[in-house]
């Protein structure tokens, strides 16, 4: 039987990052990926000849800078291209744009609300401070507030000191951000409804919340984090699609000596006397290792890869209560040419940025209403990008790929997802887009529609939740995925978790993979 120090199950970005850190720390490390491509939800695939789709995750900003430095990712292929603008088509035929240049953005905002143009400066500063306040948390192993262990107490004290140092005003603002809905929070600052809608959209992405649901303001902050300190201080496209990020991490891992195998599914983790001893593959092969790390989501980590009976009841119950409920879908299009938006006809710089279908708060909330009652949104929120505009390698010359993130598409659809429901969902997305870009239908060469059920089937993400479980306050930090088990450990010795279902989770951030690997290395032993 082959033998490794460490086996990482799942070649998603967190698994690969954990493997790279472990190999860098001197561990003989193997990564096993079930699919033929690496990356999990950060994959590039040529689904239609000549056209490369970032099939699931499509933009990056949150990737932790320390990971980029530690793993020397630019040397291994990381190259982020700018995604500079956001345009929101409005119901009245006008648009709202945010450009890369602050003067241009200010002038555009003034067109709609001079008040909001002034407020945006102060709001931006506040969010910067809020992100600064939360940032240290992203880089720390969550302490258990119910524990009296010296390391937990030290960590909690440090955290307490950090929050005290914010000063009263910022602490109060942070409290609001943690408890309010994004709509209410934005109401405190802005008048112009489409602006609030577009800003609030980042508060609902990947969660089963509407802009008026309490708690959504925090998700807003989670996305702001990328702006102060993510990969390149803003959202961007990876050259070659998000799969190329995964490849760059895999290259880094290999450069440290890790083995990476694709097309190899893990059936279960081998456990003897409460200790992980290796993995059994779906082929029946067994590979021994003293440490096994699961990059899969908590449900698969605890309910599938190991026998739940070997786990304490509290943990099994906790995982059972952990909320996935995927709420978003994805439509990828191969286009014969560029769409022309009614509000900004023809080609232009706006096509290099995002187009946000979020004309009003009511639009978003109604989209949520449909999902609440088990239907996909008849008029969904959509975040649209055309990566081939800035990365010509994504499509043949003159042709384009369009990525459409769609919300809401509930995993638990009334009657369940079927092929015809999937196509109806795809039709709804194209129809909604055609209201703003009438020529879109005539340009479509190929259409890939992914419902939460498809996301689950292809990537293995339970219930199709793109964050390995909702980024809601009740399952963050020391609550992620389950209280007492938020430090990447499991009750089985030598069995660890490193997916986005652990702190800090969500987005192509990599914090979970890194922190898990550092904990494993700290633990010592092979």
């Amino acid at each position, binding site marked *: 039987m082959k033998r490794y120090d460490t086996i990482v199950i799942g070649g998603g970005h967190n698994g690969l990052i954990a493997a790279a850190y472990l190999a860098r720390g001197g561990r003989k490390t193997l990564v096993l990926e079930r699919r033929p491509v690496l990356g999990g939800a950060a994959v590039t695939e040529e689904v239609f000849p000549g056209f490369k789709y970032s099939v699931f995750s499509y933009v990056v900003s949150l990737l932790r800078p320390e990971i980029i430095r530690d793993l020397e990712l630019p040397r291994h292929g990381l190259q982020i291209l700018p995604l500079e603008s956001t345009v929101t088509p409005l119901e009245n035929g006008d648009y709202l744009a945010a450009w890369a240049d602050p*003067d*241009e953005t*200010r*002038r555009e905002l003034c067109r709609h609300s*001079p*008040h909001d*143009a*002034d*407020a945006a*400066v*102060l709001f931006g*500063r506040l969010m*910067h*401070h809020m992100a600064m306040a939360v940032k240290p948390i992203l880089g720390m192993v969550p302490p258990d507030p119910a524990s009296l262990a010296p390391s937990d107490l030290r960590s909690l004290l440090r955290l307490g000191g950090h929050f005290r140092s914010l000063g009263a005003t910022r602490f109060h603002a942070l409290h609001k951000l943690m408890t309010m809905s994004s709509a209410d929070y934005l109401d405190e600052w802005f008048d112009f409804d489409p602006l609030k809608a577009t800003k609030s959209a980042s508060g609902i992405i990947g969660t089963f919340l509407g802009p008026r649901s309490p708690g959504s303001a925090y998700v807003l902050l989670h996305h702001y984090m990328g702006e102060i300190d993510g990969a390149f201080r803003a959202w961007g496209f990876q050259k070659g699609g998000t799969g190329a990020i995964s490849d760059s991490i895999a290259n880094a891992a290999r450069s440290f000596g890790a083995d990476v195998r694709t097309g190899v599914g893990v059936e279960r983790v081998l456990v003897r006397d409460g200790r992980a001893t290796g993995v059994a593959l779906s082929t029946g092969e067994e590979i021994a290792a003293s440490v096994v790390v699961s990059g899969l989501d908590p449900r698969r980590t605890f309910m599938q890869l190991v026998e739940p009976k070997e786990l304490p009841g509290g943990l099994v119950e906790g995982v059972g209560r952990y909320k996935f409920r995927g709420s978003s879908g994805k439509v990828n299009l191969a286009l014969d040419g560029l769409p022309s938006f009614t509000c900004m006809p023809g080609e232009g710089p706006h096509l290099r940025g995002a187009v946000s279908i979020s004309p009003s708060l009511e639009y978003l909330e109604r989209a949520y209403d449909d999902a609440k009652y088990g239907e996909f949104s008849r008029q969904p929120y959509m975040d649209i990008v055309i990566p081939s505009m800035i990365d010509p390698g994504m499509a043949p010359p003159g042709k384009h790929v369009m990525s459409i993130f769609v919300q809401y598409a509930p995993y638990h659809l009334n009657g369940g997802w079927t092929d015809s429901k999937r196509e109806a969902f795809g039709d709804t997305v194209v129809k909604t887009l055609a209201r703003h870009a009438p020529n879109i239908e005539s340009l479509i060469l190929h259409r890939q529609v992914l419902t939460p059920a498809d996301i689950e089937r292809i990537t293995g993400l339970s219930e199709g939740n793109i964050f390995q479980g909702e980024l809601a306050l009740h399952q963050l930090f020391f609550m992620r995925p389950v209280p007492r088990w938020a430090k990447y450990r499991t009750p089985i010795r030598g069995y660890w978790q490193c997916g986005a279902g652990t702190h800090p989770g969500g987005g192509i951030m990599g914090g979970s993979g890194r922190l898990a690997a550092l904990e494993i290395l700290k633990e010592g032993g092979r």
Partner: protein
Amino acid sequence: MLKTSPFHPRTAPLVRAQTWRRWSGYQMASAYDPHPDREYAAIRNAAALIDVSPLYKYRITGPDAARLLDRMVTRDVTRCRVGQVFYTPWCDAAGKVIDDGTISRLDEGTFRLTSAESSLRWLRMNAVGMHVAIEDVSESTGAVSLQGPLARLVLQQVSPADFGALKYFRLVQTTLREIPVTISRTGYTGDLGYEIWVDAPRAVDLWDALIEAGKPFGIAPAGVWALDIARIEAGLVMLDVDYHSAHRAMIEEQKSSPYEINLGWTVSADKGPFNGRRALAAERARGPAWAFVGLEVEWDSLERLFTAHHLPPHLSSIAWRTSAPIFRGGLQVGYASSGCWSPLLKKSLALAHLRAPHFVAGTWVTIEITVEHQRLQADAIVRKLPFFDPERKRA
């Protein structure tokens, strides 16, 4: 695209070296000539015409207009008579400066406020519950500054107003070659000068009239580079260069009180309630921790640093805006925020923030200067501002 000023059709063809810059979202000329020397000389020797349209401008009307402004700014606006102009900063509740600008009382219930940054939201927040209308006239009003010892003579050729009677910081509503204008005896150069306010559609006509009338008097369009040297000589503080708005500062250390930027004289000790009154009274009582002063770099010490490299001292014709540390007795006691070579005074000048007690006039300090990639120090002496204050400014 950046915005263009109402004078752009006339100024754009003059920008020979394409030396454009940004100013509040506008595309403006840094200089018309490749170097600002001639444009600066016009400010001090003849008459310079400077487009200042990017200033934010607000028209504030209504029975509570004076009350709103009085509550917002540090000066006592109730004392501002019709036809008078007040220069003033305004503060947040902690007494930290948000912006500075001028308040012109056009008639009993009508004021015009200028500011460097957008102030609409702040005005509205201060106006809650008041009978007042606030109109942003930034884009509908063109503004051009005519500065220099011959400025009055130029205006007398084209306007019927009595410029002999128009005192410093007073304004007159008049015509200029039949174009309705407001002319205020104000400016950002510390010289004799006027600012002319016009409806944007008539801006080009106004420009043409002034250029034509000014020709015999050596009028020259001047850009921001020339203006910057003049305002440093005049010791006038500039937002985002010498201080940062309390609304935009990222940390407390980046904020300044009026006392700390040489605007203590604008803080009324006896007016009614206004933003920052309590904090400013406390600061007045304990004495400010910082002062904004002039520095004259001592020539011999400057020259020595260059001579060591067999070079003559480098004297730029453009002002600098980078922060330079100031030391005394080996300890850093402050920083200079802008400076220039004064072609008029033949001195290297800097505007500096110094901690107490090092800001007393006559104190010797050193300023960091980079010569051939080495950070060195030259001697400098603290001076009261302004460096240059000609009688003609007020006469």
